[in-house]
């Protein structure tokens, strides 16, 4: 097991290398030029050329790739073309917000999605099952930005229970921290809640027809015990997979949620950088996110072994 984990950890390096080069190539193929944006309205062609040279954008593509990779190997993600701040500082300022948002959204998704899916499978064909399915379809279909505004209107503007926007770090107090995350996390979680509920239901339906479930009931095990200890444990592998993928999707989905709630997270950092063609920031964020994604997949693979001892690597 441990050699496998070590092997997988080492494998993240070439994966991230490929991601890095692909991102670099894609960005440089995109129309737009940070030098022109920096130069501003009054710039002449000479001004723009001077800024391009200063930023190294006039170098051949391969030279630029080489220089950038060389810096990465030394742990330097570069500095923002615009603010002049190190990319690591910018990511450090934002990573906490996105991490907490993603974690809360996942807790809500799993905390509601799994029990609801189990109950829907247990009461297949009942009004409860139909209700869950209606919720799931609605959850998939609802645009995040729309739901965000509805929640803000109801809970922040009409009832004044929660803040409209912004982020308060946990060091500023637990309630301010939590209150700023409830609406964004709820908004972000709905799609994944629906996804997890549907996946749990489908997986549970398959397991509930197994002989060992019938045997458990025949032995007089209480329904709760059958559902949780026998059925859910065996139905959990696909659910765990979807939770793992969900984490990655949540990081992507955070872009919209962070914009709607004005949260200073990685999603908005990326969008702002893309709009301005701030290459070092875009490259740095994507590199970090791809690394997290690879590690999450590793964690899921390890969880498979924990949940199903028959699995071996």
């Amino acid at each position, binding site marked *: 097991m441990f050699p496998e984990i070590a092997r997988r950890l080492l494998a993240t390096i070439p994966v991230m290398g490929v991601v890095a080069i692909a991102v670099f190539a894609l960005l440089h193929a995109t129309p737009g030029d940070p030098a022109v944006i920096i130069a501003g309205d009054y710039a002449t062609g000479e001004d723009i050329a001077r*800024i391009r040279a200063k930023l190294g954008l006039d170098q051949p593509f391969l030279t630029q790739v080489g220089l950038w990779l060389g810096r990465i190997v030394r742990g330097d993600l570069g500095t923002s073309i615009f603010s002049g701040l190190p990319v690591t500082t910018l990511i450090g300022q934002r990573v906490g917000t996105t991490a907490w948002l993603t974690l809360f959204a996942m807790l809500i998704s799993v905390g509601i999605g799994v029990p609801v899916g189990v109950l829907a499978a247990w009461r297949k064909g009942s009004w409860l099952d139909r209700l869950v399915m209606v919720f799931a379809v609605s959850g998939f279909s609802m645009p995040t930005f729309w739901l965000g505004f509805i929640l803000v209107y109801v809970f922040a503007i009409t009832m004044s229970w929660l803040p409209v926007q912004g982020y308060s770090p946990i060091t500023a107090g637990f309630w301010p921290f939590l209150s700023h995350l409830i609406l964004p996390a709820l908004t972000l979680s709905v799609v994944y809640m629906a996804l997890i509920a549907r996946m749990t239901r489908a997986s549970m339906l398959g397991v509930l027809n197994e002989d060992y479930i019938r045997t458990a009931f025949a032995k007089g095990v209480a329904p709760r015990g059958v559902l949780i200890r026998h059925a859910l444990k065996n139905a959990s592998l696909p659910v765990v997979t979807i939770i793992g993928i969900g984490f990655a999707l949540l990081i992507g989905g955070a872009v919209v949620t962070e914009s709607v709630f*004005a949260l200073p997270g990685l999603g*908005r950092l990326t969008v702002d950088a893309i709009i301005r063609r701030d290459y070092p920031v875009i490259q740095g964020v994507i590199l970090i996110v791809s690394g997290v994604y690879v590690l999450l997949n590793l964690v899921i693979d390890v969880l498979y072994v924990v949940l199903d001892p028959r699995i071996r690597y």
Partner: protein
Amino acid sequence: MSPMSRRQFLAAATGSVAATALPASSVHAQKGGGTLRFVAQADLKILDPVWTTAYITRNHAYLVYDTLFGTDEKLQVKPQMVDKHTVSRDGMKYTFTLRDGLKWHDGQPVVAEDCAESLKRWMKKDRFGRLLAAHTAKVAPVDRKTFTLELGERFGPVLEAIGKPSSNVPFMMPARIASTSADEQIKEIVGSGPFRFVKDEWQPGNQVVYVKHADYVPRNEAPSGSTGGKKVHLDKVVWRYIPDPATAAAALAAGEVDWWEIPPIDFVPKIEQNATLATFLPDPLGTQGWLRPNHLHPPFNNKKARQALVAMMDQNLYLQAGIGQAKYYRTCDSVFACNGPYATKAGAEGLAKQDLQKARQLVKESGYDGRPVTVVHVTDISFLSAAALVTRELLQSAGFTVELKAMDWSTNLATRARKDPPDKGGWNVLHTWWMAADVINPAVHFGVSGAGSGAWFGWPEIPQLEKLITEWVRATDQARRKQIADEVQRVALDEVAYVPWGEWVAPTAFRKNVQGIPKFIAPLFWNVSVA
């Protein structure tokens, strides 16, 4: 909708300003202290106001830095850091003496050398500054409080240049910082303005924090624009960047922020219905829309084809489509800001009234060969998008074949800098906007530059315009400058350097507990308090 005359507009604008401005601009017993939370128009990413022309950086700099001279509400230039100044009898030597008690945020005194270095750096970047530099022999300190500017050639508007209110404003910095190359960003943010920038709390994309500069010594005069006594009543100013206007509107209504710099105009009626909120027109000069032809390539390398653009122009169409609410826009037949000192109707007869028949005739006379005219269509800025669509319709009515090239603003910035022919990635027509303060006279106005490759994108080569601009800066008499400005407009519209498509104003919105917001082209935070 019937067109609104300038007089009608001014009456309406004055009325609406009076109705909305009173709570803000009237003088109250100011309560000291507190934090003001402000939603800025854009994300502050660049901190050097000389290195970039971005308005958000200029606005940031007004908090942190001070200026030698400022511009008041009536567009008059008045001393700010300067205590007194003298001009030699021949008008060739200016001597400036600094006020007592000026200090940098690091506690060091402001000395003449700092100001001389700051002026020199600014003169390398700014258009007005470069014109001044071309006429200047020497800027040098005399003693710790005095420095001189000696002209090599006559230059009339020296104080107008040094006191210009919009980008690039000559903000003063310590000499060690001002000696940074004008092509490099400064690394250290140390000003002598009424607020201090808190670098540790700066989060690009989220917030900027300023605290009161306790050592700031305001002038004794009443405040007006960027002049007069900059009295600080706030302990802290927090700029928030909230990219979604609906979120910003909700945050303002919920009291999470106090002041929203520029709400989109379609949000304003809703804001005005809220009893706890108010709106106010801080910059009556407003903003001017531009249609810019590319002079390098057919068909607009031909004067008659360009004149067709003037003949087809109907500013009301653009303003209705782009701005929408009539009380916030006005037609303006002048290339110079219509509420500014050089507004004129000279040579603008063709601009005042649309004549599509004449446009079609001009297109025919130009020898237009039917090749598609590439119009840059910026899709992520609503009024520019609308302007491009109106232009397409009008160009087609005039007999052109049109191709819209859709892109976001950032791509547009790269595209507009390309001199290639339209079928190789270039363009024929683009739309943009400028604050009226940046089109107020020939020295700051990029649209009337005819410097060819040195001119703004579109690169008109009209030597007569360059000659007139030089004459304008050398004129020392205001009446003569006005005459020259009229001539500049005649030539610019006859050669069609660009076509203005009207002016509009943008209200600012705030909670009624915010008092003392000054009238100015940029948001200013001195004399502002929160109850």
